[in-house]
């Protein structure tokens, strides 16, 4: 069994669990939520298509050395700041941030800088904010969330510097 399969089983198991609770409340509750969830899904598919298929092209033309080159171990807080901006500018999707982070690490990037990069990418990749968070959640919440998580990558870099790499 692969990890991805276990995750899928857990995910659909949770859906079945909350679905059966809904069914016990009545058939109409079940069908209403099924309809609601399916409508959300249908509405989001074009965005996910554009986001996932498109981010491959965006990643292919972003000059990697610009993202990974400034994150050296001696770059200090300037490097961390660069990492945060680079993370936000990296397209979303599940893989690209990690791949570039791995490249940075292999080509001599400093660990706190790479941590800041990966966390900033996970938190604020601009494409993910625009394409996925805003349609799903109230826009006011998305901007608020992004604004208050701004210190987080810096905090993580500070923790990484304090703890040191094991």
């Amino acid at each position, binding site marked *: 069994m692969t990890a991805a399969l276990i995750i899928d089983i857990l995910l659909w198991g949770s859906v079945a669990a909350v679905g059966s609770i809904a069914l016990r409340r009545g058939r109409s509750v079940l069908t209403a939520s099924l309809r609601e969830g399916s409508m959300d899904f249908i509405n989001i598919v074009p965005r996910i298509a554009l986001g996932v298929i498109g981010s491959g092209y965006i990643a292919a033309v972003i000059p990697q050395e610009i993202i990974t080159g400034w994150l050296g171990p001696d770059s200090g807080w300037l490097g961390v700041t660069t990492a945060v901006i680079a993370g936000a500018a990296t397209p979303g999707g599940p893989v690209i941030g*990690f791949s570039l982070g791995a490249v940075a690490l292999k080509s001599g990037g400093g660990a706190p800088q790479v941590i800041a990069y990966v966390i900033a990418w996970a938190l604020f990749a601009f494409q993910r904010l625009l394409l996925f968070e805003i349609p799903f959640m109230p826009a006011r919440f998305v901007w608020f969330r992004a604004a208050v998580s701004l210190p987080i990558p810096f905090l993580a870099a500070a923790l990484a510097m304090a703890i040191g790499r094991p």
Partner: protein
Amino acid sequence: MSRREAEPRPGRIRKPIGWSMIVIGVLVAISAFLVYRRDGIDGVTAILTNDLALFGGILPRVLAGCLLGAFIAEILPHEKVSQSLGPQSGLKGLLIGTAFGAILPGGPFTAYPVASALLSVGADFGATIALVVSWTLIGYGRAVAWELPIMGTDFTLWRLVISLPLPVLAGALGRFVYIRMYPKGAPPRVPP
């Protein structure tokens, strides 16, 4: 009366195409053209097949996330949610949000419909921020499926440990700012 169409959930206005999609679409078109100029048609199709496979893998999880969000919004009692995740829930609410985000299964995008559902049934911004940040940073879905194979075990575990306190901090900061921005509670929604 089992239907409740008269009362649409807040924040769920569906717009299939918006300005954000146009911006990204233009960006993608330019990038695809640059790839074509550099690598020819083979480069374009190679990326397309790779990303189509990725897209196919993600879709079922997105559907599961949407259904999970819809069910949660339907079955969770409003007063219970606002008690344990609302503005008065204190540190406990932030910890519950963090724990919920960490165990929420699924790959990309499953957490957003769930977070939106919780907001609509009484969770406050702070607890929901804790949930989203926790799902983003310590949720095992992304870490196991993508980070572990790409970044390696050492880096992933080390990053996870460093990330542990961050969701609660983000949620606390969110609450702190929110109370000062809106001292009288949430601003009234602008009617469409």
